[in-house]
């Protein structure tokens, strides 16, 4: 690793070379070096990358990001005197990295289809030239976070080049034109040089002026989420669920359709094929807002389950640092971490190799503080340049046996504001997304109501409360139905059940693989639910006019209503359904 700038650091030059004392899986003990905690070290003849995680007297304990088979005691260890950093600059978007920001595409070119050891590659290309347009002039005062220029990174995304947080001064010279990321584009009067690339230690949150209250929803186009359990821009959400309940599909759906400007997707200890799917799908899909391929707004971090455990531990930090960097440019960033349980397990594995005293279920005692530190890096902030930006974090949790009482789920729920509970029973009846509407919650419902009322419909909150009440009522009625059958219920209760069924099947269920249904704009969501409510209101009136329940249940407009969400021409279909419904109710003399 070449020299890395270390802001505010002057320290005595210590020994940089030592040797390995012990190797136990990914944990290596070295002697003879005197690094700081979290310094990056090169281990062995193959220069495997590692990070200092513990210092005991003369011994330094290192977690190694690569496989350590064949590494022997006595091999050299070199302290790079720098902590684990990510490289930030144009070229991040559209790239797939491993947990320590090695670009996987470059790795295939240098070492083939399998990930071998001891190969390093810079996070962003040193050769590529970018067109830089300055936004400050000579004589302007700049400080950390000031936007000094722009680069068109992808078709629709403008990369704002920031003055690194710890620099400030007057601009002495500024360039314009084509540069590589390491070229100096700006010189300050105190001699400090700024290039388009900066480095930032992953474990340290990037600074901002202040945190703002989240008040704008992250619109996801997923009906159950937007209508019932919305997450705010800058908010945090957890999706716990047993295997097969659709954590990954939900995360993918969010990454595809949420209305943030940048998406960072971390595949942490999950399946290789899932990352492949993202890699194949995203370039083909269009951003609903801009029409550009989704890949152009996405950064992927892929540290699959069979890749080294220590790099998995680092991957979430790498991801969130990149997210913060785009936030600092004034963008809304959404970060998906799938799955945080694998991250926690990586911590557990390393902790147990360190022979630390285990906490609950063998997880280290610091598990919940690590989780909190991570989720606290989310938020809507006023950036150093005065703009507003946000990082929303959606973390999947994979509880063993689907049991939500385990430490990772519980630790996560204490911090996150939105809880999307995935339910195995719903999955078994192919109710997707299998988000349980009775146990999930969103603490943003209140703060975001105003936005929905103002931007979608004045009846938004009312409609939500109405449908939630129906679903609650259904749950109560179901208990009776289990005992006596639905025919034994009074007609108005049967109608409640039918309306609840319509809400579940027509509204809550959404087919992620259907070209139209996969993304539902807010207006459509509202209209669909409002039409169901309209049916319910009229049907209630009909019952009071001696129309039987069976006649209502047999109405053709119900069938039509059920298919409405699949139609490309939603407005036309909506009219057809409403007309049909009116006609049928007119026949029954409910309306005139």
């Amino acid at each position, binding site marked *: 690793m070449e020299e890395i700038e270390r802001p505010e650091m002057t320290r005595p030059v210590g020994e940089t070379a030592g040797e390995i004392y012990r190797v136990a899986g990914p944990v290596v003990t070295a002697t003879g070096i005197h690094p700081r905690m979290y310094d990056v070290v090169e281990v062995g003849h193959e220069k495997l990358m590692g990070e200092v995680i513990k210092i005991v007297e003369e011994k330094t304990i290192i977690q190694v990001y690569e496989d350590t088979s064949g*590494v022997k005691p006595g091999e050299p260890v070199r302290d790079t005197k720098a902590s684990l950093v990510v490289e930030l600059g144009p070229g991040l978007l559209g790239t797939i990295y491993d947990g320590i920001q090695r670009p996987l595409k470059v790795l295939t070119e240098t070492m083939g289809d399998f990930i071998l050891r001891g190969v390093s590659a810079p996070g962003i290309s040193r050769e590529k030239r970018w067109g830089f347009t300055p936004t400050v002039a000579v004589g302007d005062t700049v400080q950390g976070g000031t936007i000094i220029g722009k680069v068109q990174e992808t078709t629709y995304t403008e990369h704002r080049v920031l003055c690194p947080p710890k620099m400030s001064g007057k601009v002495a010279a500024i360039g314009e034109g084509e540069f590589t990321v390491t070229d100096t584009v700006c010189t300050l009067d105190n001699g400090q040089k700024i290039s388009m690339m900066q480095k930032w230690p992953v474990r340290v949150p990037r600074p901002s002026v202040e945190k703002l209250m989240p008040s704008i929803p992250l619109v996801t186009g997923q009906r159950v989420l937007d209508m019932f359990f919305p997450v705010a821009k800058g908010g945090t959400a957890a999706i716990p669920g047993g295997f097969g309940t659709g954590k990954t599909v939900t995360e993918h759906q969010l990454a595809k359709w949420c209305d943030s400007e940048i998406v960072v997707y971390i595949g942490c200890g999950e399946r290789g094929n899932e990352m492949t799917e993202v890699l194949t799908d995203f370039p083909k899909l269009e951003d609903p807002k801009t029409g550009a391929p989704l890949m152009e707004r996405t950064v992927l971090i892929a540290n699959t389950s069979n890749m080294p455990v220590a790099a998995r531990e680092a991957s979430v930090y790498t991801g969130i640092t990149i997210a913060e960097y785009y936030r600092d440019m004034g963008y809304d960033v959404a970060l998906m971490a799938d799955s945080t349980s694998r991250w926690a397990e990586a911590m557990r*594995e390393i902790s147990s190799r360190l022979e630390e005293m285990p906490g609950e279920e063998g997880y280290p005692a610091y598990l919940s503080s690590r989780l909190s530190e991570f989720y606290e890096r989310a938020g809507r902030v006023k950036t150093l340049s005065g703009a507003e930006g946000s990082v929303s974090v959606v973390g999947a949790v994979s509880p063993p046996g689907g049991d939500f009482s385990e430490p990772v789920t519980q630790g996560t729920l204490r911090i996150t504001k939105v809880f999307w509970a995935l339910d195995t029973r719903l999955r078994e009846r192919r109710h997707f997304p299998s988000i349980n509407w009775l146990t999930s919650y969103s603490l943003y419902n209140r703060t975001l109501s105003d936005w929905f009322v103002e931007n979608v419909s004045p009846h938004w909150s009312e409609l939500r409360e109405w449908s939630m009440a129906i679903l609650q009522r259904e749950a109560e009625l179901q208990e009776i139905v289990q005992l006596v059958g639905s025919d034994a219920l009074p007609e108005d209760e049967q109608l409640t059940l039918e309306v609840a069924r319509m809400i579940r099947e027509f509204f809550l269920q959404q087919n992620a693989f259907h070209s139209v249904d996969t993304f539902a704009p807010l207006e459509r969501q509202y209209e669909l639910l409002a039409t169901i409510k309209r049916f319910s209101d009229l049907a209630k009136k009909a019952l009071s006019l001696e129309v039987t329940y069976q006649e209502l249940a047999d109405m053709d407009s119900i069938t039509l209503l059920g298919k409405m969400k699949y139609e490309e021409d939603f407005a036309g279909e909506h009219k057809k359904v409403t007309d049909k419904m009116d006609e049928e109710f007119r026949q029954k003399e409910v309306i005139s």
Partner: protein
Amino acid sequence: MEKTEWVGYGELVEIVLPDGTRKRGQVLDTSKDIVVVQVFEGTAGIDRSSSVKFLGETVKLNVSKDMLGRVLSGSGEPLDGGPPVIPEKRIEILGAAINPFSRAPPEEFIQTGISTIDGMNTLVRGQKLPIFSGSGLPHNEIALQIARQAKVLGEEEEEFAVVFVAMGITHEEAQYFMRDFERTGALKRAVLFLNLADDPAVERLITPRMGLTAAEYLAYEQDYHILVILTDLTNYCEALRQIGAAREEVPGRRGYPGYMYTDLATMYERAGRIHGKKGSITQIPIISMPDDDITHPIPDLSAYITEGQLVVSRELHRKGIYPPIDISPSLSRLMDAGIGAEQTREDHKQVSDQCYAAYAEGKDLRGLVAIVGKEALSGRDRKLLDFADVFEAKFVRQGREEDREILRTLGISWEMLAALDERMLTKIDRVTLEKYYPKRQEGEDGQGVQGD
């Protein structure tokens, strides 16, 4: 063991007992003072005077194209009386992770001829789809039927070469597999690695990696499409726990080591396809769930890594239905990639979703019927109840040698759906209904086979 010179982590060790017996082991922990070695063949007979030799390399397997047709032991030695495999290459069995960027998405439909798999939980080439079963259930028969019938449809139907890995199974079970392979002539296109119940537990940890190394060589260097059958992962995990306990590690859930997820992942993730390579590896691991408990750590962790699971049900088995695959808890995550107009037929996804929903509802109603009787049900509920019964009798049930084509499977689905009202088919869109719903097609055969 205290040591003389410095030894690499994961290095192979040879121990020679005073009586001349050789045992092999592997370095688990190495430092300047002490080396911890795990012995594959069990520590019986090792004493202080045994000599220890560090071989300076990690565990490797001799691979060659001629491996096909061979029966090898759990550590790669011939068991069939034949000569040792003449190596074309020696490969480390640990294997490296496939770079996610190099992976090609699995998307080629594999027809297994079993309706519950093809129709409802489609297997695709490069997928890892385990069978979750219990003791006494016919998982081995199902695995064999898949191995026998699996093919990729197309201009020329392509068959698979099989790598069969046995971990801790009994002689009898091993015989059963071998006989079936011989009976059907599949042995010619198969290589068997057998670690039996009375072989040392530690060897169980390397057997599947031997098998997968052979599979990778055959797939990525010899262009074979490989089907890897691993049985039984439960025995493997027991061995892992045994070793973990011996190493005095902090145990995780139910005493299994905390790294079991990662350890299993290093095997399951070796399934897949690679851009630019002709071959592929499809994995069917078999896991017998202790006490049929799907939340047990072994099936639980596995299902978090594999791309779905096929669950064998004791209830269906008791009803005498073969193959007793219960679709409700089963899942194939890659199904959507492998079906549709180009692979099977355009209506496949919707039909399967609809059958799933109707079957689930029908099954729920069985509980209700027991209380209130069938007469108390509404017409809609009665139809769903019947659907569930017909589904099990016609769709799930099939012959042990019956190789049902996918179009036949879809045809049966539509026949069953025809008994439901059109309005109950909420998962099927208008266009598809018009094309395939038998009631919409007066005069036609009503099986919906005319598409494609």
